[in-house]
């Protein structure tokens, strides 16, 4: 019996680690997606932003974020504020596990590993929205604060067992805690930053600024799709019995179906509305489907999951267009639309298939998370603007931020060494 308990622990720990590794791979997805959707002269900088933010997220979460989000019994203000301490290397002993009768079923450090990659995901949503005109080090400064403090605080309120959780707010894998959080921070950043030069004409016209590399963008989306199996699948948190294994399988299927539904819906809508099969809308559509199902990938049937994704795809296309046309909010990759607006849809869809959820609790969660993240982010962005500045100079923006911020070009030519 003890052997089964130990094996079960090992399997569940392994499951966390593999799912965490899949979510880590989403960093490559965001990096490639964004690299493909910006102009050539700004590519090296966005690559640097993405690899940098991932590393910063891991370090900040280890130093302070994790225990702020999961203080266990050690919360400073129960339900509201976690604890301030760094991650140590202590873990459960075999004796502890057996004595718990299986209640302790995974390694503490595997839990950290699984959680840390989620923080990085939230932060990388911001990098796409502020692309091509933000100072690199201002971005990194913001990353330190979002990953170390802003994200963990609202994460505690739901997943750490805080007041949102107690109020019945339901968010399985993070349509709110991760995706809408990232989008709210991105929105605050874009409002402080302003649009790219030349994006909007004085007469209100919108100028297209096409991305330099469609293959990279597409690769990025497919990598994200794969990583999302870990994102949603791992959030079931356990696999080592029949019920849990079945649940995980359903989550994988629903995640896949929602992405498929979102992609097809967005592609059809783009064809009907613009007359062409816009690849970038198809990519955003698939991601929208994934974001939509993330709040609840377990209770819907595969057909329902597909529909949830379809609606996500149908929402994201007009949102992207009207963000530009009506609100003049310049978001080069559509991050705010995909992760924010559709994140809200995902959270509102939960009560449709999950009887334990309610619209009231969902609205409370949406409002709380959005307000917290948006307001604190706004304050941080404004503080950064006042001190080191957020925007590159006009000259640098025309030249391309690769040269100004990174001192190298993503696609260099006509260069000679020496002298």
């Amino acid at each position, binding site marked *: 019996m003890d052997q089964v308990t130990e094996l079960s622990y090992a399997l569940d720990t392994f499951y966390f680690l593999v799912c965490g590794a899949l979510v880590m791979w989403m960093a490559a997805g965001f990096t490639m997606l964004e690299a493909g959707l910006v102009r050539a002269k700004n590519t090296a900088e966005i690559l640097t932003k993405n690899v940098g933010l991932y590393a910063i997220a891991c370090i900040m979460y280890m130093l302070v974020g994790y225990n702020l989000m999961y203080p266990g019994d050690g919360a400073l203000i129960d339900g509201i504020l976690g604890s301030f301490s760094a991650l140590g290397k202590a873990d459960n002993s075999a004796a502890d596990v057996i004595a718990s009768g299986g209640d302790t079923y995974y390694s503490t450090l595997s839990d950290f590993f699984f959680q840390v990659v989620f923080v990085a995901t939230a932060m990388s949503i911001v990098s796409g929205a502020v692309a091509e005109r933000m100072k690199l080090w201002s971005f990194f400064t913001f990353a330190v604060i979002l990953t170390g403090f802003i994200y963990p605080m609202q994460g505690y309120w739901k997943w750490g067992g805080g007041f949102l959780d107690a109020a019945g707010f339901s968010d399985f894998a993070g349509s709110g805690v991760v995706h809408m959080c990232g989008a709210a921070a991105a929105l605050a950043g874009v409002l402080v930053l302003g649009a790219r030069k*030349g994006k909007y004409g004085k007469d209100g016209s919108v100028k297209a600024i096409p991305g330099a590399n469609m293959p990279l963008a597409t690769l990025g989306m497919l990598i994200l799709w794969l990583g999302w199996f870990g994102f949603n699948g791992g959030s079931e948190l356990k696999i080592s019995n029949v019920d849990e294994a079945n649940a995980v399988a359903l989550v994988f299927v629903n995640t896949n179906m929602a992405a498929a539904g979102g992609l097809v819906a967005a592609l059809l809508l783009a064809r009907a509305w613009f007359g062409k099969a816009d690849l970038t809308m198809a990519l955003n559509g698939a991601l929208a489907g994934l974001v939509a199902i993330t709040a609840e990938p377990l209770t819907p049937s595969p057909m329902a999951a597909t529909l949830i994704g379809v609606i996500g795809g149908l929402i994201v296309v007009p949102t992207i267009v009207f963000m530009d046309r009506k609100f003049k909010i310049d978001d080069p990759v559509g991050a705010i639309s995909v992760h924010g607006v559709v994140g809200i849809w995902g959270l509102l869809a939960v009560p449709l298939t999950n009887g334990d959820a309610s619209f009231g609790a969902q609205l409370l969660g949406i409002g709380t998370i959005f307000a917290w993240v948006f307001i604190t982010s706004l304050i941080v962005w404004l503080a950064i603007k006042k001190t080191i500045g957020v925007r590159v100079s006009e000259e640098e923006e*025309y030249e391309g931020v690769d040269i100004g911020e990174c001192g190298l070009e993503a696609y260099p030519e006509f260069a*000679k060494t020496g002298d």
Partner: protein
Amino acid sequence: MKLITAIIKPFKLDDVRQAVADIGVQGITATEVKGFGRQRGHTELYRGAEYVVDFLPKTKIELAVADDIAEQVIEAVINTARTGKIGDGKVFISNLEEVIRIRTGETGAEAI
């Protein structure tokens, strides 16, 4: 007829295109080029090693225009493409011997 060739900063292309269209120029060819005049390039550091990039991205435009609007077009190009900062570019004017429209065979002023 004149062939007006201009090397301009890439981000000025739209403004120049608009300005010459307003005068009545109907066709324009644009090429992405790299070049330098007196504007120096820059030195970059790649993994600790220096390298020099003399050639800067520019856009070359070519316009075939009738003699009677040539002066106006040249002025429009210069005024729109100028930023006052180094690297604004140059305009080259040459005489155009003949122009032929491929589709119809029209020549001279009708082909412009």
